[in-house]
């Protein structure tokens, strides 16, 4: 059973303070699973309706009977996906929507009771269910990975040592995978939360350094969930592995430059200006043609990495859901409409792997002949009795002429004549052992010989030593990973965590005493800096202390290391002195404008 289609939900959030300040009007209405958007410029007509699996109204407060809470969203989508994962399916939840439309709130939520998003609820639920397990033969393990796809490049967000881009590959047994992507062992929800947070930090650091914005990159958080069952009789282990992928899609506003285009969902009559896009235009043209017929062409336009992963999600035994976050405000009308259209088209995403059957005209003809033969036989011999029986079974047959069942011809003959052949009844001639098809002596046919030679040429594969060595290494890597024990995995996870932290410390980012780096633990009374980002998920995620005395900020030989195009070697210097009352006081800040990167806080 493969749910080849995507389950789609949309959700509208309350106004934010900026929208309230601007006296924004709500352009979204919802009724049942239908979402209606009205054009603020043409209030009379212009209202458009979309129907989804779920339309979530979260624009008002919980007092509103129509209000959808975080718990409800999880119950509808998250829980179902989790149950599928327990059954052994791969599941995938996509979040989509322009920055600030509430994507992060739906997926992550806030760390307050009742405010957690789908991901924390799902993780908590996962560990609760596995914790309740009392079957000694059943064990569970959970590993996670976190990657980012930016400009078609894949980056590991959890392993600081992993530099550069990773390759996506496919393996016949392991399916599609990202080579060298670290998979870290976790034992509880807090581990997952910390890793997610660490990944978000890595993403923020990279984005700030490289002048990227999160709205152009996709983030994929994957939970690999393994259920191992030991059979006491045979002492054999059977494993059921399912992947839970949580994908934060690039914001819709710049979807075109981000690779979301790869989903081939973007529409519009825009003209591509540059001739470098000619390939895209031709591909689309060829595709328009082939969509009418069964797939008979090859379009060499490499899908984006994301599409590739998505395709595999749809092509295998998996379940997929998408949640699109909507802004209610009239000022965002265009964006919201485009999000709705995107979501609408996501409903139609299907795996294009169709079964192409051969025309079976010959078979039909043979069968028709057999039906005819059986009928004639029946009628000519007047098997009324049997016919009556048949009529009881199926009243589709016309009543034949009456008669009595007489001596029937050998049933064997009947069965065989229908196929036009009679078996030789004598004993098998000596030496007539069954010969399988492959053993047929080859005839000196030139063509087949041609083919055979070719084929053999390939199967021995004239690969070079280097290539062979490389392939061997890849295989060994896979085997080593498969053989790794849980303890080894945990150890590896721990060592990567230490590396990650030391890297952050080196950059001047502060870590909690217990090593945790979670969220912003706004230290009272100690001056510090936090980063700002248009994406709330990435904002205030890095924290830098201003220590007593001199704190230097810049590219090299400094306390707080920032890299990036506009950061000077020594960017600025903070001097902090404590006055008699014991309060920290800023003495001076010198140097360039740090405001673009960070905002100083708690400086009195």
């Amino acid at each position, binding site marked *: 059973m493969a749910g080849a289609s995507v389950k789609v939900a949309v959700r509208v959030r309350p106004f934010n303070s900026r929208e309230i300040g601007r006296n924004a009007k709500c352009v979204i209405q919802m009724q049942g699973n239908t979402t209606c958007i009205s054009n603020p410029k043409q209030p009379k007509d212009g209202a458009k309706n979309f129907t989804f699996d779920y339309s979530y109204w979260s624009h008002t407060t919980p007092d509103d009977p129509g209000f959808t809470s975080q718990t409800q969203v999880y119950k509808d989508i998250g829980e179902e996906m989790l149950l599928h994962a327990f059954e052994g399916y791969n599941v995938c939840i996509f979040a989509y929507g322009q920055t600030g439309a509430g994507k992060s709130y739906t997926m992550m939520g806030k760390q307050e009771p009742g405010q957690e998003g789908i991901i924390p609820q799902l993780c908590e639920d996962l560990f609760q269910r596995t914790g309740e397990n009392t079957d000694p033969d059943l064990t569970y393990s959970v590993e996670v990975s976190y990657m980012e796809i930016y400009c078609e490049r894949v980056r590991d967000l959890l392993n600081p040592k992993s530099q550069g881009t990773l390759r996506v590959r*496919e393996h016949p047994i392991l399916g599609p995978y990202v080579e060298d992507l670290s998979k870290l062992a976790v034992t509880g929800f807090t581990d997952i939360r910390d890793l997610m947070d660490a990944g978000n930090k890595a993403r923020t650091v990279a984005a700030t350094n490289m002048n990227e914005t999160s709205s152009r990159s996709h983030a994929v958080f994957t939970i690999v969930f393994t259920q191992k069952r030991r059979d006491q009789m045979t002492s054999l282990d059977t494993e059921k592995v399912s992947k839970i992928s949580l994908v934060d899609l690039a914001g819709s506003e710049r979807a075109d430059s981000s690779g979301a285009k790869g989903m081939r969902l973007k529409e519009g009559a825009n003209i591509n200006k540059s001739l470098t896009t000619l*390939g895209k235009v031709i591909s689309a043209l060829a595709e328009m*043609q082939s969509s009418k017929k069964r797939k008979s*062409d090859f379009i060499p336009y490499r899908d984006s990495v994301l599409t590739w992963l998505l395709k595999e999600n749809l092509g295998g035994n998996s379940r997929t859901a998408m949640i699109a976050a909507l802004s209610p405000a009239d000022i965002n009308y265009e964006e919201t409409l485009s999000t709705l259209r995107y979501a609408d088209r996501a409903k139609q995403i299907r795996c294009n792997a169709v079964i192409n059957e051969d025309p079976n005209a010959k078979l039909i003809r043979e069968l028709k002949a057999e039906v005819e033969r059986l009928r004639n036989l029946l009628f000519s011999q007047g098997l009324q009795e049997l016919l009556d029986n048949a009529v009881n079974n199926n009243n589709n047959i016309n009543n034949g002429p009456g008669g009595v069942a007489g001596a029937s011809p050998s049933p064997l003959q009947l069965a065989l004549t229908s196929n036009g052949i009679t078996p030789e009844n004598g004993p098998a001639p000596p030496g007539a052992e069954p010969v399988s098809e492959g053993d047929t002596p080859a005839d000196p046919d030139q063509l087949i010989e041609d083919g055979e030679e070719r084929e053999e040429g*390939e199967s021995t594969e004239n690969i070079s030593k280097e290539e062979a060595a490389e392939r061997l290494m890849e295989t060994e890597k896979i085997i080593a990973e498969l053989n790794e024990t849980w303890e080894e995995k945990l150890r590896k996870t721990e060592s990567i965590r230490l590396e990650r932290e030391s890297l952050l410390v080196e950059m001047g980012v502060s870590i909690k005493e217990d090593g945790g780096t979670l969220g912003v633990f706004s230290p009272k009374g100690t001056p510090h800096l936090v980063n700002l980002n248009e994406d709330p998920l990435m904002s205030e995620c890095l924290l830098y202390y201003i220590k007593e005395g001199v704190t230097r900020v810049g590219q090299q030989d400094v306390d707080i290391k920032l890299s990036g195009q506009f950061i000077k070697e020594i960017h600025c210097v903070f001097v902090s002195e404590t006055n008699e009352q014991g309060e920290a006081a800023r003495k001076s800040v010198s140097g360039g404008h740090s405001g673009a990167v960070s905002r100083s806080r708690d400086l009195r």
Partner: protein
Amino acid sequence: MAATNEWRAICDKFTNAQNLTEIESRNDPENDPFRSKYKARELLREIYCEEEGAGLRAAKLGAVEYYLGVNHVDTEELPAGQEHLMNCMKLLERCRVSSLNVSLFIHVRNQLGILWAGRDETETAQGFLETAESIYQRYMKEDGSPPTDMTEYFAAEESLLTHQERIKRFELAYTHTMYYLAQVYKNLGQTERAATYCHTTLQRQLQLNQFTPMEWALNAATLSQYYITKGRYMEGRHCLSAATVISDLAGEVPSEAAAQENEAESERREHLRQKRAEIARCWIKYCLNLLQDAKKQLEDNIGELDTDRQEELKRARRREEEEEEKGRKSALLFGSEDTFDSIASIEEKVMCLFPLDFTEARSVFLVGQNHVTQAKDYFQMDGYVTDHIEILQDHSALFRSLAFFEEDLERRCKMHKRRVDMLEPICNDLNAQYYLMIRRQLMFELAETYNEMMDLKLALANRQADTQSLDNHTIKKFNHLCSASAKYFQMFLDSLCSPEGKFPERLEEEVLRPALVARFRVARLHSRFISTSPTVQLDNLNKSLENYKYVVQYCEANPEAGATVETELELSKEMAGLLPLKINRLKARMASNN
């Protein structure tokens, strides 16, 4: 002197503005993305012209308006951009097209085309672009001298362009017109025209030497896929041959040793190998579609070669060959002087008319098979599972089409055996969790292939034997093929089950027909087993009945399903009614024998 200085100052302003727009603007920060463009805009605004003849003055003022228009469009101020561009149009209205202003005539219309297309006003865009097209054509017919480039309006005498450079820029502008029109027609749903304009764009890139080889080759190969799905094999072949020739211009694939030495070489190696393999895959589809379409032309109503039709088509061939020649002459051909012959020589290696007999079919097959080998060399199983299998499926389909042309049943059977050999191990090894859909396709194809082989074995035996009897050896073989076919249909059906092994009550739309057809065929296969044992016969007939009944009952419970399997349903109903008779008679006979 003052005037000259003044003029110099204007030229400088213009050059700076160009510089800001094209170079500086790339480094503008994210939070001030249009900084340089705004600066350029200010400079452009300061440009004025007085003197000179009315014509040149209009062109110069028009050019300033043009650049201001583009500037506003780039900075997302569309209405203002439109106004400037329309001002340019107005200034030009009064002028006759000449070498002095024709470039501007075309450029401004290109921009207006883009602008209106972006507003979903495709017809308006079409109007501007089509006018640009006809202006170009008329100019080339009536004048044709290298036209002044707009940048020259504000350039000092010594930095005027060479004729060659002028032509290059002018032709490039027109190439863009072609490209934009291609998109406009595509958006209007006129795919045929769109394809022609893409073709023209590619042709012009090649002719004017404005292309990157591998990118161009891949685009041409992709365009071939449009043509082949349209059944236009001559154009398809031309695009592919050109793709092959031009891809060679991208240079040698760096050796493995070189790739290990440095990153850049390694990346280049990867890139070239991948693109070449992709072009090979386009070729495979060409050969496959040509064979399949030929088969469609030649087959009778049960899918066998219709010899009358074959003769008829052979007689018509002469005429077609003449037409092909004519077509070639009128077609839009790719090629520069040095590539023209190489393209033609590749075209000669494979036919573009439907193959009508085995020899012709074989020649197409072999070309396809060559490209299969080439494509598989890059898209290997380890690393590219989906791609690799798609290529194998094509290879199998090539064999299937070739078998149609083969008269010798023994050899035909061997071709199907080759299909089984290449697909069976993969089908059994793939992980269903990731490759469920692919496995289903493979199971279905294997079931059909075994069925085909079974039919062939039987036909062969019947043809060879004078008597109506089959020897035990043939029976065993027949039964083996029959059970293999049934096994794969059953495997396909089992793949639809839930993790608990339950067959779904309601079949999903995309598997509805395949699942019912599989049931139907399993039913048929069970009734075909050859056995002398009445017990075995009874068992087979019961299984057969059960499957026919399933089809009937499913369609009764879900009436909408009936439409997808009309013939199969009708026959299943008949058989569900008739088989009990056969079963009862068998039972009666067994009872009387005991």
